[in-house]
């Protein structure tokens, strides 16, 4: 039926259609589907804001909203320090990036069961797209935060600002590693999503977002535990870097200067971030292998 003289001689070698891959092969495959990742992130955003009045400016208004609420609340409660709301925002933005990445990626595969059963593509793209979407929201909110800082003419500590991209990168490595593990786990045990909710709650309070690091460190020392325990939480170095750079070390305003964050040079922060990235890259490598193993039976389990 076909004219063999005209047929394109496909010179490629015979490749297996499924089965385990090497980690490098897995990453290469994800790379080939980069367009898909990009489109899924875009889709998530377009769909969310498609029929809304303000569009994506909602993402930007959120921080402003928090600002107003927290300022009012803490003014009434009398707790906290000068520009407490700004302090909170610095940490909250990165925390939101982490928590929303995790909660959306957990259900990313189970919610797309139909696709997984019908089309071949590297499933890792789904949780990674959730992380991508969370990242875009973060960027929008960050723009709002920068606007607030500029409006208040807040003394940003410029010698620490260069650390911010590294902090963001650390957060992303943590998010991606957890996203892969959670998404795979949720397919085999559907209550992963619920367990995660509890975990995120606990994790939030273990991260110095609403309180300052200095206080937590003091308290731990007073009961005989080294403050280094706080760095076990990968979100901590990220959050304190943002706070240090954007808010400053001591609190703003007249009166007694309280040390909110430890007295460390920028390179120290870089060191801690570096260790966290290194550790979590290893976790990420394991996560990819676990995901690859789980992917073998994914379509049938769904």
């Amino acid at each position, binding site marked *: *039926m076909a*004219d063999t003289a005209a*047929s394109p001689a496909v010179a490629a070698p*015979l*490749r297996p*259609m499924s089965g385990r891959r090497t980690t490098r092969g897995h990453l290469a495959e994800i790379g080939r*589907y980069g367009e898909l990742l990009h489109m899924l992130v875009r889709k998530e955003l377009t769909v969310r804001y*498609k029929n809304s009045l303000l569009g994506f400016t909602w993402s930007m208004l959120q921080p402003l909203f928090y600002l107003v609420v927290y300022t009012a609340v803490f003014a009434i409660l009398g707790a906290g320090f000068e520009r407490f709301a700004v302090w909170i925002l610095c940490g909250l933005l990165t925390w939101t990036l982490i928590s929303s990445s995790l909660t959306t990626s957990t259900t990313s595969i189970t919610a797309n069961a139909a696709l997984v059963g019908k089309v071949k593509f590297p499933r890792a793209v789904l949780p990674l797209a959730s992380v991508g979407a969370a990242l875009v929201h973060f960027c929008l909110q960050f723009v709002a935060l920068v606007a607030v800082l500029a409006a208040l003419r807040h003394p940003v500590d410029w010698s620490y600002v260069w650390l911010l991209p590294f902090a963001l990168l650390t957060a992303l490595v943590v998010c991606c590693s957890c996203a892969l593990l959670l998404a795979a786990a949720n397919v085999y045990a559907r209550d992963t999503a619920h367990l995660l909710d509890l975990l995120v709650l606990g994790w939030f309070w273990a991260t110095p977002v609403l309180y300052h690091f200095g206080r937590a460190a003091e308290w731990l020392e007073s009961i005989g535990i080294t403050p280094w325990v706080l760095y076990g939480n990968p979100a901590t170095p990220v959050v304190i870097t943002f706070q240090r750079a954007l808010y400053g070390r001591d609190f703003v305003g007249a009166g007694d200067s309280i040390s909110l964050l430890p007295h460390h040079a920028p390179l120290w922060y870089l060191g801690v971030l570096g260790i966290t990235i290194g550790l979590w890259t290893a976790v990420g490598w394991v996560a990819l292998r676990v995901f690859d193993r789980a992917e073998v039976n994914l379509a049938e389990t769904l």
Partner: protein
Amino acid sequence: MTSDATAVAVEQVSKTFRISTDPVMSFKERLVRLWRTSHVTFDALRDVSIDVRQGETVGIIGHNGSGKSTLLKCMAGIITPTSGQVLVRGRLTSLLELGAGFHPELSGRENVYINAAFYGMARKEIDRRFDEIVAFAELDRFIDEPVKHYSSGMYVRLGFAVAVNLDPDVLLVDEVLAVGDELFQAKCLSRIKQFQREGRTIVFVTHDAATVRQICDRAVVLDRGSVIVDGRPDEAISTFREHLHGSLSERPALDGEALGDGGVIAEVASRPAGADGDRSGRFHIEPGGGVDLRITLRPVSPIAEPIVAIEISDRNDTLVYSADTDGLGIKVPPIEEACRLVLGLERVWLLSGEFHVSIKLLDRADGAVHGWREHATTFEVRSPRRAEGIAAIDVTLRREPG
């Protein structure tokens, strides 16, 4: 055994599903029950091996439960075989679902990009082919409207338009093409034929025997997870149909052997009308001549109100005549034991050609099919007339006065 010409190699693929009779789907349940679960295993595929050469179009036929969807998913890489492997040369695209990734809120344009991305296309490729895709789908005016406003036909056309513009080396298709109206199906078919001319490899999974005969070079029949036939389409289809009949009657089911003689319709022989019973050999008739079909029956169970159905098609599988004794008002006496019926085709006004006859035996009472013989026999017509087509028509010409 693969060679340089192999496009898809299915090598001893087996797939066993472990179906939990009471699945554990949460951590809580697992804690409560530890690892005590009960399973049932189901062998969907048993040691299937198929070698598809480049440029071939292979059809895979089987009833529901034969394992053909599982095989298709293994070939597409969606399911991993329990043992064995599937190897593919070049880019394989599977059309198991049109419109994968479509979101109703997004416009046709945005959905094309997402759908194409799911098939692994890069942005530049999609940009290049975008106009072709929209033109094929005939949706130029609507491409920027949200897909939720499309009719189901438009939806399917868009999905298919993306899929066929993918430039795969191997194309895997299932019944997804059955969706859509006649015009659309014709378009699909012509695109598939174009793919064949371009030398691409196609694997086609279907129930529809006619399509298999039309476009496949080869057909593979699956039954309960094993390959029972792998060869020419008409042979495969015959076996498939006979097998189907075999499982319908009370006979014990045949385990994978091709049906030769035997079966309820034991033999059908064609003779020129009125010829002696035992004279054999090739013959031909002229248009208007008669053919007797001697049908030897060996029923498994008695049939109170039998109906004999006949189907005559030409060499290209175009249907020439199809009817049954019930519709023709012919009463068939009850059949209890082996007997021989003669179905007389009295005046066969056909032009030259070789015609296949298929015979079906049914019971009027419950519509059960007792026997079915596809291409049971053939007869030849030789027409001295210089005319083309199928039907032989007597034509005269005269002049009217005035």
